[in-house]
C-alpha cells in the first residue's frame, strides 16, 4: 500500500513538474524519449489547435482529425524542430498547412464530383439570409444562430484572408505571430486582416 502511494506521488510530481516546463523544454524531453512530455504538449495545445482548425474549416470532425494529424506530424518531425522561434508558431504553421491542403482537396473533390454539377450551393444561399426578426425566448438560440452565421461567413472568405483573421481575432495571436506563422511580412499581414474584416462586415451587415 505504501508502495502504491509512493508511485502515485511520484507520478503526480512528474506531472506537476512537466506542467511547469516551457514548450522548448518539453520538446527536448520528448527528443530524449520522454513520452509524458509529449503528452503534455498535446494537452497544452489540443484545444487551441482544434478550435483554430474548427474556425478555419467550419467542420468539427475534420478539425479534430486534422488537429490529431498535426500532433502526429510534430511528433515525427520533432528532431527537425529548432528553437529559434516559438513552438506555438511552429505547430500553428503545421496546422495551417494541413488545413489549407484539406481545403484544396475539398475543392478538387467538389470539382470532380459529377453530382456536384447538379447541386445548388446551399451554404452560399443560406448563410447571408437576413436574420429572423421574430422574438425568441431562449437567448442561447439567438447566440447559436448568430455564431453559426458568423462561422459560415468566415468559411466563405478566401483562405489568404481567412487564415490571418482567425489567428488574429479568434486565436488572439499578435500581428507578429500571425506574420511568422504565415511567413508573411508584417504589412501584408495587417493588410490582409483589415481586408478580411471588411469582407466580413459586408457579409454580416444584417447584424450591424
Amino acid at each position, binding site marked *: 500500500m505504501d508502495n502504491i502511494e509512493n508511485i502515485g506521488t511520484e507520478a503526480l510530481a512528474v506531472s506537476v513538474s512537466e506542467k511547469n516546463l516551457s514548450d522548448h523544454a518539453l520538446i527536448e524531453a520528448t527528443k530524449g524519449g520522454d513520452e509524458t512530455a509529449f*503528452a503534455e504538449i*498535446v*494537452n497544452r495545445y*489540443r*484545444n*487551441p*489547435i*482544434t*478550435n483554430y482548425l*474548427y*474556425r478555419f474549416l467550419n467542420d*468539427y470532425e475534420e*478539425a*479534430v482529425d486534422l*488537429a*490529431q*494529424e498535426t*500532433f*502526429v*506530424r510534430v*511528433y*515525427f*518531425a520533432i528532431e*527537425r524542430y529548432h528553437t529559434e522561434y516559438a513552438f*506555438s508558431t511552429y505547430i500553428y504553421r*503545421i496546422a495551417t*498547412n494541413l488545413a489549407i491542403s484539406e481545403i484544396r482537396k475539398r475543392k478538387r473533390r467538389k470539382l470532380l464530383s459529377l453530382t456536384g454539377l447538379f447541386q445548388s450551393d446551399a451554404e452560399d444561399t443560406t448563410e447571408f439570409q437576413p436574420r429572423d426578426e421574430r422574438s425568441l425566448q431562449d437567448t442561447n438560440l439567438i*447566440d447559436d444562430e*448568430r*455564431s453559426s452565421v*458568423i*462561422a459560415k461567413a*468566415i468559411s466563405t472568405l478566401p483562405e489568404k484572408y481567412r487564415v490571418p*483573421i*482567425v489567428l488574429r*481575432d*479568434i*486565436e*488572439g*495571436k*499578435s500581428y507578429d505571430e500571425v506574420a511568422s506563422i504565415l511567413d508573411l511580412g508584417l504589412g501584408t499581414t495587417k493588410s490582409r486582416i*483589415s481586408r478580411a*474584416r*471588411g469582407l*466580413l*462586415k459586408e457579409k*454580416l451587415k444584417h*447584424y*450591424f
Partner: protein
Amino acid sequence: MGYEDIQKNIETEEGLSAGEAKIRQMLGELKRVEAPKNFGFAVQARIANAGPEDLRPAGSGLAFLRYAVPLALVLVVISGFVLNGIYNVNDNSVGPVAEIQPAPAPAPIVPAANEVAFTGNNSQVTNSENETKVVTGSEIAFEPVPGPRTRKAVVSSRNTNGGSIDSTQEGRTPIINLNPPAGMPASTPQPGTMGPVGQIPVQAILKIVGIKADSSNEGWKVTAVEANSLSEHSGVKAGDYVEAINGQPVTEGTRFSGGLIVKNLRVKRDGKVLDIPLK
C-alpha cells in the same frame, strides 16, 4: 495561453474603425470548441499505428510522382494523337493527288529542219541543213541528220512544264511556247537576278533565229549571224545591236514567257534604228 489571455489580446487592439472593432468583437465572442476527451489517446494511437509514409516529411518528393507519372502518360497519348493527326492530314493531301492520272509524257519530238529540242538544261537543235547538235547553255552547233528540209522549228522544254517552239508561220517564223499562264507578259528582272523559272532568256531566242549576241550597254550586240538562218535572210548583220524583240525592249536580264512568235527585231546599226521583220 488561456481563454482569458486570448480575450485580453483581442480587446486591446486600438485604432480600429467602428466596423472593424465590431467584427473583432463578434469573432472574439465566438464560443471556443474543445478537443474531445480521448484526443490524447487518439494521437498516441495514430503515432503507434503510423506507417512508413507517415514518417516521411510532409511534401516528400515521391508524392510528386503520383501526379507526374499520370500526367506524363496523358501527354504521351496526346502527343500520339497530335502526330497521328498530322500524318493523317498529309495522307489526305496525298490521296486525291494519287487519283489524278499522270500527265502524258510529251510526244517525242522528231527533229526537223530548224528544230530545237530542250531537255532539261540541254537543247537539241536542228538547223535547216539537217544538222543536229545537243548543246548546253548558249552553245549551238549543228551536225547533219537525215530528213527533209523545212523551216519548221519546235522547241520543247521538259523542265518548263513542257513546251515547244513551233515555227510554221510562213514556214520560217519560230513560235516559242513554254505553256505559261495565258497573258503573262515578258518580264524584265534586275540585272544579275534570275528571271522567273521556265522563261527563256534573250540570248536563247536570238540563237533560235540564228543570231549569236553578247549583252552590252547599248543592247545585245550581234557578234555573228548564222549562215542561211532566218536572221541572215532577214538582213541582220554582225555589229548590229538588238534593242527589242517584237517591240519589247530587251536588256541583259529580260526573259520572255508565253507563246512567242518572233516577228521582228529592232536593231541599231551605225546609229540608226532599224525594224527588221523576220521572214
